[in-house]
Structure formats: C-alpha cells, structure tokens
C-alpha cells in the first residue's frame, strides 16, 4: 500500500505531529509525504530525512501559504490517484483538511485512530474515550486522522526520500486568510511536552494562573494547560484547553491543579503516565484517576511546593 501523509509545519520546520503520523502510515505501507505551503522547501528537505520516507511531494504556492482546505483538498485528491491512503495528524489543520478530501473521494474518514489493526481495520476512541471501537472499512481508498499520543515518533534522520515538486490548481477563490493571533511561548508545546502543569477553575483568575501555575511550570520545564472552564473564564487562551474537544496529551507527568476531573477533561489527559492532582475537595473525581493526590488549598500547596522543589 502507498500512503500519503500530510506534513504539519509552519513553513519553516516539521512539527512533531508529523512524526507520530508517519509511524501510523508505516504500519500500512510505503510512506510518501506531502508538504504544502509557501516558501517551504526547507521543510521538504527536513521531511525527506525522516526515517522510512520514500518520497516527499512539495507543493509550494502562494495559494497554499495558510493551508486553506478549499485550496489544499483538490491537490490531495489529485495525488490520491496514485496513493491508497491519506493520513493527517488529528490537529486542527489535519481535521480541517482530511474530511474535505474524504468527501471528494467519496469515502468515510476514519477519525483519530489509536491503532492500526490491519490494512482496513483500526482502533479509535468514541464517546470522549469512554469506549474504544474497533472498526473495519469497506472503502477502497483510506482517509485517516491519527491521534499523536498513540504512536511513537518516527526518527528524524535516516530517511533518504526524494523531493518532487507538485502543483495544484491554485486558489479556488472561495476563502482568504485574514490574520492570526498565534501565541509565542518559551515553554514546551503542550502536545509534545514531557511534563504538563494544568490549571482549572479552582485557580480563580488569570492573574492567579500566572502567579501560581506559570512559575511551577517554569521550575519543572513543563508546558502549561487548562480546562475548558479556565479558558471560558478567560484565565488563559483557547490553545491551552486539554480535553475531548481540546488537545489530547499524554506526558510522563500531568499535574492537575484546581481541576475537578470532568469526563471531557479526562478524555484529553488520562493516558498520561503519571497523574498528580491537587484539589481541596477530597471527593473530586480527578482523584479517581490520579496516581498521586494531595488534598488541600492550592494557594498554600503550590507556593510551598515551589519552595521545596
């Protein structure tokens, strides 16, 4: 089987989400990559070195600068004439593009897979991860999004893929990019961090979040996350949200501070290796999944913890 993997990048470098997806693709067959963007030749060169990659298709065009799905999907559909499976990371970019490709190919997308069971069979979580489904498709071409936390990263070296330029049909004239507010952070990225410190509604305010959560994260070299309640209340921006409908994370250590442990939040972090919970309510559901729990007031505990670490 020949697979085509959508490379997640920022026109400058390959994002880790790609590496997990390559591992899933390699379980199906030969791995080809697609780098689509503008001024992204360096990304293609970097991608060609990923272990196991046979070929990189590089689509470099102003129409692809912001990876608008209206422009990218027709290009992928054209390339699928020569591939059997299209895989994208289950990121906001992958989720935006892949279903559009699937519909144009008249196939069902298999969303958010956590295992490849065979050439047409996959495992995926449903109901916020409260159930695990094994599914089998009858479609001739596969369109799949891949949950990064479920697959190891492919090695970034050792590959010797060839880079081949491809062109699409350009701008479909349906949509245009207006602007973005992308937060620059010195901290590790949530989805690839080894340690995450997350704050919930219990933290009380944005000011408290930055006074309590940020310093602890910085001390541990951790990424910072949050619950929906904390984001809705404006403590931190939307890209901090961990959960069923936010980011899925699985760090070595997840420290939940002032988080009750609603199923929608657990859906995003319960595959963490070790979960630590600090909550003043000893009956909070988070303690049912926490490996290490400490009952008490976070405003006393976290500063004391900072002082003693």
């Amino acid at each position, binding site marked *: 089987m020949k697979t085509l993997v959508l490379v997640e990048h920022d026109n400058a470098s390959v994002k880790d989400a790609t590496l997990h997806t390559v591992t899933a693709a390699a379980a199906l067959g030969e791995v080809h990559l697609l780098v689509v963007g503008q001024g992204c030749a360096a990304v293609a060169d970097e991608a060609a070195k990923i272990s196991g990659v046979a070929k990189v298709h590089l689509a470099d065009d102003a129409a692809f600068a912001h990876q608008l*799905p*209206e422009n990218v*999907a027709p290009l992928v559909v054209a390339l699928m004439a020569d591939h059997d499976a299209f895989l994208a990371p289950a*990121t*906001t970019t992958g*989720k935006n*593009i*892949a*279903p*559009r*490709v699937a*519909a144009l190919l*008249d*196939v*069902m997308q298999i*969303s958010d897979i956590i295992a490849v069971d065979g050439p047409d069979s996959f495992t995926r*979580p*449903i*109901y916020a991860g*409260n*159930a*695990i*489904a*094994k*599914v*089998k*498709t*009858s*479609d001739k071409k596969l369109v799949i999004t891949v949950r990064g936390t479920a697959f190891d990263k492919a090695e970034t070296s050792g590959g010797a893929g060839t880079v081949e330029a491809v062109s699409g049909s350009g701008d479909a004239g*349906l*949509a*245009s*990019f*207006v602007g*973005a*507010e992308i937060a620059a952070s010195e901290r590790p990225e949530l*989805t690839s961090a080894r340690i995450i410190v997350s704050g919930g509604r219990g933290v009380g305010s944005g000011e408290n979040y930055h006074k309590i959560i940020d310093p602890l994260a910085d*001390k541990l070299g951790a990424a910072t996350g949050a619950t929906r309640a904390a984001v*809705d209340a404006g403590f931190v921006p*939307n*890209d901090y949200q961990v959960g*069923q*409908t936010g980011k899925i994370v699985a760090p070595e*250590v997840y420290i939940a501070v002032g988080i009750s442990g609603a*199923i*929608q939040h657990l859906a995003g972090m319960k595959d963490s290796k070790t*979960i*630590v919970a600090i909550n003043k309510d*000893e009956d909070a559901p988070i*303690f*049912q*999944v*926490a490996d*290490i*729990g*400490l*009952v008490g007031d976070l405003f006393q*505990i976290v500063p004391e*913890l900072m002082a003693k*670490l």
Partner: protein
Amino acid sequence: MKILVPIKRVLDYNLKPRVKADGSGIDLANVKQSMNPFDEIAVEEAIRLKEKGVATEVIAVSIGEPKAQETLRTALAMGADRAILVTHDGVAEPLAVAKLLKAIADEEQPGLIVLGKQAIDDDSNQTGQMLAALLGWAQGTFASKVEVAGETVNVTREVDGGLETVALKLPAIVTTDLRLNEPRYASLPNIMKAKSKPLANKTPADYGVDMTPRIETLNVSEPPKRQAGIKVASVDELVAKLKALGVAA
C-alpha cells in the same frame, strides 16, 4: 438569507456511556438523549444572526430515529422557524449525513449552514467539512466568532496555536467551537409555541441517498481502567514522589 442548522440527538453529555456487554456498542435504551452541545451553539448563532437582521429564516435539520423530533422541537423552542426530520433507523455516517444535507441545501438554497464541530458520541469531526466539499463551498471550522458582511463571512477559528481569521465567500459552512456563544434556554411559552411550528418528515429515499455504512464496527469495549493511586498527606511527601519520578532534581 436562510440559515440551515443540522443538529444531532446524542447521549446527554452529563451521562457516562455504558458499553454493552456483548461489545456491540453503547447502551442507549432508557437513557437521556439531548441535542449535541455544539449544535445548541449552532442554533444559538443562527438565531442571533436572525435577531441582527442578517438571516431571514432558521431551519433546523436532523437525521435520525423518530425521537430526533424532540430534539428538533428544542431547536424550534430556542427560536428556529421550522424543522426537517429525515427519519433513519440505524447508523447515519457523516458522509451519508453530508449527502442528505447537500440535497436539502440544494432545495433550500441557504446562505449559511452552521453545524457543530463534532458530535460528542462518535467524535468524528467531519460532517461540516464533508458538506463543504460536496457543495463546493468555503468552510470556517471551529468558529469562535462569526461576522457576516455583505457577500462574505469572517470566521475566527480556534486553532492549535491560538486564533486564525478567514474570510469566506457566501454561501459558506461554519462549524462551531465552545466559545462562539452561550446558548439560551427555551422559555416555557416558547416551548408551547414550538409545538405548532412546521416540522417536515422525510426519508433518505426522498433525497435518493444511500445510507449503507462504509465502516463496520467490529467491537466496542471499555478502555483500560486507570487505578486510583495514593493520596499523600503533605507537600514534603509530594516533593519526594516527584523527585522519585525524576521530575525535579
């Protein structure tokens, strides 16, 4: 312009799903089902656009078992003008749903279709994008702000790195994220009024759409259970544990 709002009836988000012992799926007998939370946000957005004078009519559509009628009545009570129920027992996959919605859009000619970004049962997150593809329209997924201005709609999207704004040519597809708005509750008088609003009953055959699933579910099981660990009594103990994990020096 008209706005079409597809809504799905799903297991209420407050309930913990129970996996059937035979591994065939989730037990939905005698459990509360409600409108998918993202679809409530979609209905709310459409009604607000009507209140602002941007939209003239809001049409709610659901594909599902006859009981989905109740969910459509909820949308009508919130303020939708009329509803279409496409009755189908059994699985309605996103691709088939998108095909039905395309056929309805061809008939109704809406200026905007607002869907939820994801149904919280199958967690597919694909119907809106598929519908956009089938119609050949632009899509603004994961919306946290929607502004219609003349022939364009500006959609601010929640993306992994933060926020992104795109300008879409109308007609277009929007899928809602959590922070787009806070849906209203239907008042009692509006619930009463909703009973007499028009609700059309259709079948997939009326639209010539084949509902045969492409994906077969082989088995549904419970995820491995996480064991609750220990509670420590003091910060000192917590520090010791964190050090043992190699988290701190």
